[in-house]
């Protein structure tokens, strides 16, 4: 414990927000996977890029996603959730060429034709005989569109995360007011949460890894997406038990009877609102906050746990 109980209260709160945010992250990932949110958003963004947004029957986009290179990225019937820009560029050139030579150029959406012409004219030395932009130019065009799409995805999922935060808060009865009061009056609980927070910090913030489609090929190729080994995002069994002990609905019947409906509701609505808002800020925010508060609490920087690099200085 420090001589500043308020700091330990803050650390305890931050740690609990982090755990609840991790629960929301896990749920969000599950929803995104089940609903294939990324794949659907990618298709929607591609349709817009190809000038077919708002059209009921986006034939050109469908043809693009049917291309062999794109099919290789799909998992069964699921649309790919990530397309390397060069793969997109190659598939697009194939489809456009096919349609140009098949004399049904009218099947190329007019807006796409205009975009391709604009790209080709901006880099005249890199176009081919059929006035198609070069692969790098198309890839860059796709990357720029995907950057914008990534922002849109984050904005859209923010609302889902907020709803999840409200749901998790209510389901667990995670009341900030009640928790703060408990932490302030219970030094043992404060000390316990600070210790648990240290364990969590030792794991470090989740480090994202990528996967490659050809793991044995040492040639550099485009990654196919993030991996599924996200252990730092998962709650430890002790942390799950901790949340179960801190929150819940068991004691609420007695509190409701003692305080009356009005006061009970007023106190809880404030506590729930604060929790839901905090949790919706996300796990990375609270992890970073926890790291900073712990450093503030420490008298010096705690040395990290090293593993000696083989062939170097012994541990």
């Amino acid at each position, binding site marked *: 414990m420090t001589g500043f109980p308020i700091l330990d209260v803050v650390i305890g709160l931050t740690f609990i927000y982090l755990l609840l945010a991790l629960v929301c992250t896990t749920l969000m990932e599950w929803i995104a996977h089940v609903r294939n949110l990324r794949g659907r958003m990618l298709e929607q963004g591609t349709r817009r890029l190809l000038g077919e947004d708002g059209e009921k029957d986006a034939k050109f986009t469908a043809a693009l996603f049917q291309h062999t290179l794109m099919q290789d990225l799909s998992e069964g019937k699921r649309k790919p959730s990530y397309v390397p820009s060069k793969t997109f560029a190659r598939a697009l050139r194939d489809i456009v060429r096919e349609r140009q030579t098949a004399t049904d150029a009218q099947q190329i959406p007019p807006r796409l034709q205009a975009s391709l012409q604009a790209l080709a004219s901006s880099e005249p030395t890199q176009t081919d005989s059929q006035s198609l932009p070069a692969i790098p130019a198309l890839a860059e065009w796709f990357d720029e569109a995907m950057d914008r799409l990534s922002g849109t995805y984050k904005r859209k999922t923010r609302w889902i995360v907020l709803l999840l935060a409200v749901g998790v808060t209510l389901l667990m009865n995670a009341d900030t007011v009640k928790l703060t009061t408990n932490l302030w009056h219970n030094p043992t609980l404060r000390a316990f949460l600070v210790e648990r927070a240290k364990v969590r910090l030792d794991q470090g913030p989740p480090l994202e890894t990528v996967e490659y489609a050809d793991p044995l090929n040492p040639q550099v190729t485009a990654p196919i997406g993030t991996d599924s080994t996200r252990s730092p995002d998962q709650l430890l069994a002790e942390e799950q038990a901790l949340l179960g002990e801190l929150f819940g609905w068991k004691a609420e019947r007695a509190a409701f009877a003692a305080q009356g409906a009005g006061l009970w509701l007023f106190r809880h609505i404030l506590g729930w609102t604060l929790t839901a808002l905090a949790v919706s800020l996300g796990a990375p925010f609270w992890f970073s906050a926890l790291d900073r508060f712990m450093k503030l609490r420490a008298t010096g920087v705690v040395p*990290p746990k090293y593993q000696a690099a083989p062939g*170097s200085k012994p541990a």
Partner: protein
Amino acid sequence: MIARLIAISSAFACVALAADSLPAQAKKFEVRLKRAWVQKFADRTTVEAAMTVRHTHKHANSVKKGGDDGDIHFSGTSPDIGLPFVAEVVNAGLPAQQPAMQAIIAQDDGGQLAIAGAWRLWFEHPAKKQTQGGSNAFEPDHTNPDHSFEIHPASKVDQLNIGGSFIPIANYQAYDADTAFPYFDSDSVTIKASSSGISIRSKKLKYNYVEFEIELTHDPKAVQDGFIGLARVFNDQGDEAADGTRRMIFVGGTKAATAIQNASAGDRFRVLGVPRLNLKSVLALVNKNGTKQFDAQLPYEMIIVGVH
């Protein structure tokens, strides 16, 4: 009651505000590599790349200390690397390097170069996140974009062999062993692997050129493109500057490699070196930890640029 609720709400607001204003953690730069690529280069001294040159300096740096190291810097991309990178020729101002200098400068702004040299993964000018083979921003768009990968020093530019540039830099004040090695040994990295990728997180690292003494503990081992030696490290007073041994990398066909190729265990040399990540150690750590995230002492080795 109301006062207590207001106090709690205020405390909550303070938590959120303070959390955002305190200094951020230092270790925040990430590079994600392809595991098979790492395995290929772990025991190689060099890499070859078809480079698209984005920007080049027009002259060699002046020679003094720190960044005034006599190198020429040029930046670009290559499908063989998959990361924005910078290449550097040491002793670029010497007459022997002028044909290579002209070849490099001629390719400024989009030209192609076949380049080879010591690969160097090091978080000296890192980007927040870069992924090998991914869509990495080339920012800032000049000779020194955010990068964790370098070909430094270069040993070949097109058909021009510049292995002769691997000599100590005259009149350059390098960092000493007592400054650099304790710093390297006190740093840590965070590593996590997937089945086909390896991610490494580090803080920004410093101390580029270090001058020190080595004593080989084994005969140098010939590898495909040079020599790798295990050596103890000493400072100017003859005291050990780092416990245990470090890997020393000698690029094949360079003056540095020529100087040690017939050396034996126990031989001593005064050398100029630049640090890079030791990918062999990274692989060993990854094999031990599987897909679990872990912290480890900075795994590094020294590319020997010159032997006195």
